[in-house]
């Protein structure tokens, strides 16, 4: 086992606090167990060191096939399928948070050991696999010269790209394989000072009139000061016609992926919660994003559970906090969300959501590092989260780390962006469909 564990023997020997083990706490589902806060003197940091695939493939359930659709990308994050079936991949790495204290220097170095050494592409790549054989006939740099692009949306002939500092709109004509950067129109600037959590997730409302942007917090729990948390840990709603925006939800620590629930047409998100209060706190979550709602960050978690770290205390804010819908597990780093409706995948994967889990650093037994399936009924999570794609971890080493997940109903393909092996994986049912699959609404 070569996974790196950073501990200070002297400090542990003095054992001012326990740390590490996660025991068997149920930290998934609508009512997760929330154990007492454990603050360890030395944060538990365990990073799975990277390993190559060496021809191996991730593991998928019986009846499914996985292939690497594209490799040698430059840090693929989120994806979008255009109306003609072309797949766009946003590539890049953002953030410019200054190192303010010794911990930033040390922890930053250790966490970087678990990431790719490739330089971010700051571009979109287009993949066209019209015959569906798993080998794209066309692969082009679709838009170059971007700044850590992440969220993507397509509405009514316009492609929206969320850079780490601005939302851009590009005119698109069906079949295009490249768009000049110069054709971009800036819809609005996005909060980008410090950009501790730099990813700007994006989704368009079902009727196409609104765009939603997920904007992560500028710290774990306010330790960079609350002044720079203005308009952070929020979801913005932007009127597509006028560019006017409002804060749609707040206290939502790091909403890394947004998607429209196909049954309710409501906005849903996966959200990364805070670190360093124990291996089972706080669960990352999947939730409907209620307009006007406050989800607690930084003062409380999972509703009104008080976090003692942020000061000044704000009981008035904690009183407003609501709990999210569904826990995905602590520290799993959920970064991808896509819905499957109308029984499109059949056999056990009829209605639900796929969640890409990048994987943990802040617990001794690694969590995440997989794509999970959350079954839905009546437009809400119904049942246990299950593993869908695994095999990213082998012997404590990471061969890949899933980020964005995108399901394309017409081809019944699930695309997975892997930002460690810089690969796009495609999962499809092995057998031909009995009847043409109906696209979700």
């Amino acid at each position: 086992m070569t996974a790196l564990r950073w501990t200070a023997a002297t400090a542990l020997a003095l054992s001012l606090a326990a740390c590490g083990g996660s025991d068997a706490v149920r930290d998934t589902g609508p009512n997760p167990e929330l154990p007492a806060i454990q603050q360890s003197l030395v944060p538990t940091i365990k990073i799975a060191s990277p390993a190559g695939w060496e021809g191996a493939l991730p593991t998928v359930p019986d009846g499914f096939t996985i292939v690497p659709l594209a490799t040698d990308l430059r840090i693929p994050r989120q994806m979008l399928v255009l109306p003609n079936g072309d797949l766009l991949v946003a590539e890049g790495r953002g953030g410019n948070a200054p190192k303010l204290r010794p911990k930033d220097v040390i922890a930053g170095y250790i966490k970087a050991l678990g990431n790719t050494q490739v330089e971010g592409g700051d571009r979109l790549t287009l993949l066209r696999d019209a015959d569906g054989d798993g080998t794209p006939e066309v692969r082009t740099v679709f838009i170059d010269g971007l700044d850590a692009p992440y969220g993507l949306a397509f509405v009514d002939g316009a492609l929206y790209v969320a850079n780490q500092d601005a939302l851009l709109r590009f005119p698109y004509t069906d079949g295009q394989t490249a768009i000049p950067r110069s054709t971009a129109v800036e819809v609005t600037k996005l909060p980008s000072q410090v950009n501790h959590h730099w990813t700007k997730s994006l989704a368009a409302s079902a009727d196409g009139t609104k765009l939603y942007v997920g904007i992560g917090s500028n710290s774990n729990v306010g330790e960079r000061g609350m002044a720079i948390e203005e308009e952070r840990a929020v979801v913005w709603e932007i009127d597509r016609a006028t560019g006017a925006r409002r804060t749609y939800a707040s206290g939502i620590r790091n909403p890394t992926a947004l998607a429209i629930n196909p049954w309710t047409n409501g906005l849903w998100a996966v959200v990364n919660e805070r670190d360093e209060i124990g291996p089972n706190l706080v669960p990352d979550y999947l939730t409907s994003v209620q307009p006007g709602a406050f989800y607690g960050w930084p003062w409380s978690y999972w509703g009104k559970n008080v976090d003692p770290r942020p000061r000044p205390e704000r009981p008035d804010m904690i009183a407003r906090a609501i709990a999210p819908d569904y826990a995905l597990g602590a520290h799993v780093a959920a970064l991808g969300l896509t819905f499957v409706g109308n029984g499109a995948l059949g056999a056990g994967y009829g209605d639900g959501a796929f969640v890409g889990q990048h994987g943990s650093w802040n617990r001794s037994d690694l969590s995440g590092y997989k794509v999970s399936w959350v079954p839905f009924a009546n437009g809400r999570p119904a049942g246990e989260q299950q593993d869908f794609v695994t095999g990213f971890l082998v012997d404590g080493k990471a061969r890949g780390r899933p980020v964005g997940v995108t399901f394309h109903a017409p081809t019944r393909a699930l695309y997975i962006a892997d930002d460690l092996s810089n690969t796009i994986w495609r999962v499809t049912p092995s057998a031909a469909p009995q009847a043409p699959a109906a696209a979700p609404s």
Partner: protein
Amino acid sequence: MPPRTLRTGLHPVHAILLSFPVALFPAGLASDIAYLNSAEIQWSNLSQWAITGALIFGAIVAIWAAIDALRSRDRSLHRGPMLYFVLVAAMWVLGLINAFKHSQDAWSSVGTTGLLLSILCTALALAAAWIAHADAGRTTVPAGEPA
């Protein structure tokens, strides 16, 4: 053979190194107090760098003190090089714990525990310096005579 004198104070380089924890631990204590009074995170950040600086220079001081203590004929824990070493070592170990404590986020970076550790580190640094410099300029003992 010309008469020699035994130096009772610290080597000048050792004294200069010791001055860093003597200055930086109290500086960290002051910025801890400022943080607890204001919740302004920059004061906590300042404490963290002050403690880190104290530890870096304090490490060399502790090693030097250990060597002096081992070479000394006076093994009493109540005075001299051994007492000095114990104070410096305790200061450094508590300083390391304090550095980890201060690496926690927001209020947890200081809180009651961090403040207490900073007070202890400050007291130990000052006590070590007092022991080290107490004899400075006071006596020289002719070599070859019973001390």
